[in-house]
């Protein structure tokens, strides 16, 4: 069930070394407010296979979001190496989509124009206009196409953000706690939605979350992370068939196992990892 970081786990019917995304020995150091330095990520390694959904699960401050920003190309690692396919990641690009906890829809654009934003930015709106319409339909927002973001509910805004992130058909979609701000019911519905889109599109997804149920429900693999400095504690393969049952014994068993790994099973006074 576990594997050492960086070492590809056995794969079901896929070629193990054709990693879509390679993170190798990445360290990230930030200056701390008192003038010193904080090691946020310590020689972190991870490889994600094409079409895989990997969750980064861990408490706040373990560098999950930092890692995601580096994969997106928005931050540079202090040392180490990030690659998509054979290309080193140096700058943001349309092939690595990013979605935040805050939908960050452009408030001055309607839902339709928000979803079209990626096409406009790449200068291909004329040829690919129909794709924006397709994603508008896929996330069920046709009726709200000409509405401005402040008129949307949290769940609708997040669906629009998902469509916007997918419209460029990125090779990798990075999700930074995308459902964290939603209520429990909306969140579970959105999890289904994301899984459905992932299955139909085959996009590789990296999901940052601190919701254990969400990680088990959605991902092929969970990377458990330790806080300060962040590194991958263990990788958990989830072989449960889809669609998954949140109430199945397997699910609950896995949940218990992860809680125990994180020392949150309860009853224990000892907090050491």
């Amino acid at each position, binding site marked *: 069930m576990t594997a050492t970081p960086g070492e590809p786990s056995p794969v079901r019917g896929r070629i193990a070394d054709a990693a879509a995304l390679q993170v190798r020995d990445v360290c990230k150091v930030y200056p701390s407010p008192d003038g010193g330095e904080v090691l946020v990520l310590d020689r972190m390694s991870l490889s994600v296979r094409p079409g895989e959904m990997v969750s980064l699960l861990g408490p706040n401050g373990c560098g999950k979001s930092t890692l995601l920003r580096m994969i997106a190309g928005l931050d540079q690692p202090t040392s180490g190496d990030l690659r998509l396919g054979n290309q080193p990641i140096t700058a*943001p690009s349309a092939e690595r989509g990013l979605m935040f906890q805050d939908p*960050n829809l*452009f408030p001055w654009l309607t839902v339709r124009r928000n979803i079209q*934003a*990626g096409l*406009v930015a*790449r200068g291909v709106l004329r040829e690919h206009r129909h794709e924006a319409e397709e994603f508008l339909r896929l996330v069920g927002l046709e009726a709200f196409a000409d509405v401005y973001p*402040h008129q949307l509910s949290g769940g609708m805004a997040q669906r629009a953000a998902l469509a916007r992130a997918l419209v460029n058909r990125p090779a990798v979609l990075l999700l930074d706690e995308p459902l964290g701000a939603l209520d429990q019911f909306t969140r579970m519905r959105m999890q289904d939605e994301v899984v459905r889109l992932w299955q139909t599109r085959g996009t590789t997804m990296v999901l940052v979350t601190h919701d254990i149920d969400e990680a088990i429900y959605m991902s092929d693999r969970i990377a458990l992370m330790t806080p300060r400095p962040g590194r991958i504690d263990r990788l958990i393969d989830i072989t449960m068939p889809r669609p998954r049952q949140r109430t199945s014994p397997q699910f609950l068993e896995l949940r218990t196992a992860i809680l125990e790994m994180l020392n949150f099973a309860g009853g224990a006074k000892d907090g050491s990892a």
Partner: protein
Amino acid sequence: MAGKTHTTDAATQNRESHPVTLSAGQLATASNDTGYVDCGRPLVAVVAPMVAAVAACLIHVFIPNGQNLEPTWMDPISVWQQPYPIVLQGLFLVSLFLALLHWQCLPARPWVRYYAPLLAGAMFLFGVDDLLSQKLAWLPWPFFPGPGMVLGCSIEDCGIIFSSTWHSLLLLVSGYVVGVCMGVLTGVLIGWFPSIRYWGMPLLKVIGPLPATAMVPAVMMLSNDSFIPATALIGFAVWFPVTMLTSSGMSNVRLSYLDVARTLGAGEWYLIFRVAIPSALPTIFIGLFMGLGVSFLTLIGAEAVGVPGGLGNYIKAQQSSMEYTKMYGAWLVTAVLFSGLITCLFRTRDWVLNWQKGVIKW
């Protein structure tokens, strides 16, 4: 239960609305679902303008003049046919029409109820002004002429006032447009590019606050034709606030918008024109509003100090020749003109920023 309480309230309101009094304190304001503020007593609201028009007219016609007026072109005309009473009679007809509209046309009711008290208030002020100045002479002639004298004497000069207004408007608009274009351009450059910010900001801080009117004498020496230097002067005055607010808006773009745009494949051009500028627009419009205020100041100041022609010049000239009636007339025209321009700006803003919620009302 709730329904019963409601009807009782309505009945009480109706009963209270019967005694028609013009006391302002009784015009309690309350909001209704039409979006117009309703003053609560429909009968008062609808009758008030007619009462105010009649009262103002009677004050002007029947109370003898207390001020020792100079002769004017109006003296041979019967007092009923002088401009001010004619205007009041016209306003009475308008009030009557509004009352009929309120009675007959249901959709116009909230609108009438909203505007009728304002109309009444305006005429009430005219009447009070008339009493204090021309009629009771508590305010001395010629410094405080009544509305009758202001209107009558200004009509005499209406050709000059009109051409002055046109002159001022042309100068103002051209100066404002130049200032806004330059301001937005430099604001975007300073706000977006750190190297330009480094050199531009200190320059802006030193020369920006310099009052444009202080440069009138120097600017007037540059050219015989006054239009271009005056345009430049107003443009400079407008440029400073517009640049400041634009650059502030540009440099305060939410970073996550830029991050999202970058991961969508956006280049520098998209980031500036499709993310930073739209998100800075609310701040830019504050700059445009401040710039408009400064442009009024500079225009009137410059015209009064040296630039020939225009309303500022006219006001200065009338003041020098003790023609205070015409000076007040020009004031009124200036106020209406400037208020109209601000309204235009706010309409434009509402149209451009229709995506925003909760904006300042004008």
